[in-house]
């Protein structure tokens, strides 16, 4: 049963589904931050862990790294590299959330919305981040790119020509 579960989890189609979902999550998470960089800078400042001169720079750059790596994950380009970029960001987010929880900071997560009243941070915020992290690492380790846009298109092209895959 465990073997069957492991086989199911590592099935290329399932892993591709995980990859696309992870990419979509990161694209969605970046949109509000890109639209409202000042609010996102406030969100970062609320964590009180980063020296303030660096906050704006991170608030400007981070959402674009999220959206680009999210888009590349969805399309299946440089899968392993982008899954590692996303996982790296999730490690940083998790540590930031953990320290905020340990210090009892009454702040919002800033994960999907920059509205300070949107998502009040709880332990579940951390759990969700760790789940996403596991998700990202799984994609990095297991996705061989069989269902990437490039692979699917080239298969379709080969089939159109009548050559065997």
């Amino acid at each position, binding site marked *: 049963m465990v073997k069957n579960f492991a086989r199911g989890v590592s099935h290329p189609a399932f892993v591709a589904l995980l990859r696309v979902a992870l990419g979509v999550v990161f694209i969605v998470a970046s949109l509000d931050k890109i639209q409202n960089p000042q609010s996102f800078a406030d969100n970062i400042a609320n964590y*009180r862990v980063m020296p*303030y001169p660096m906050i704006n720079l991170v608030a*400007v750059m981070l959402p*674009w*790294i999220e959206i*680009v790596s999210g888009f*590349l994950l969805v399309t299946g380009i440089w899968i392993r590299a982008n899954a590692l970029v996303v996982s790296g960001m999730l490690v940083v987010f998790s540590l930031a959330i953990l320290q905020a929880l340990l210090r009892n900071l*009454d702040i919002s997560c800033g994960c999907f919305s920059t509205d*300070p009243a949107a998502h009040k941070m709880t332990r579940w915020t951390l759990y969700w981040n760790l789940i996403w992290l596991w998700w990202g690492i799984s994609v990095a380790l297991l996705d061989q790119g069989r269902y990437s846009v490039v692979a699917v298109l080239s298969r379709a092209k080969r089939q159109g020509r009548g050559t065997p895959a």
Partner: protein
Amino acid sequence: MRESGKIIVQIAVVVALSSALALVINEVRKGGLPLVMPFPPEYRCSDQTTEGLVIPAKEALRQHGREGTALVDARAKESYEKGHIKGAINLPYSFLDAVPQEAVEPLRKAKRIIVYCNSEGAERSRLMAGELSVAGLRDVWYLQGGFLGWVKAGGPYTGQKPEGYE
């Protein structure tokens, strides 16, 4: 080894291109952020966005010594030790660390809290006043003109005169 080298290069390309794109768009767009934040922002808590109210030095002088008025020096310990408003307690403002709860508790007895610093624009005391308000303290004010303004207005102090006083 070859594969991991390739992945590192890909990661660098993704991060570099995304960052470059972000910087260009930030430069071009209306309302782009200055890349270096000039001063610590007021941090906002989920539903308690607030900040202290400004109090002029003359009004603060009237309040000084009255029962229930607490004075908080938000400057660094060294500045406080050099000289401070008579009767003030030292609670240095730090952008990275929240005010410790044990420092807030004694202030709960005060009816009115006046925070001061040394800066001309009183930024540090304004931030500290906001922070104390967020911590649940009421009637928190920050002193216009800081320690210098206080001494110029003839307020009592302990130790040296503030820098900039002639």
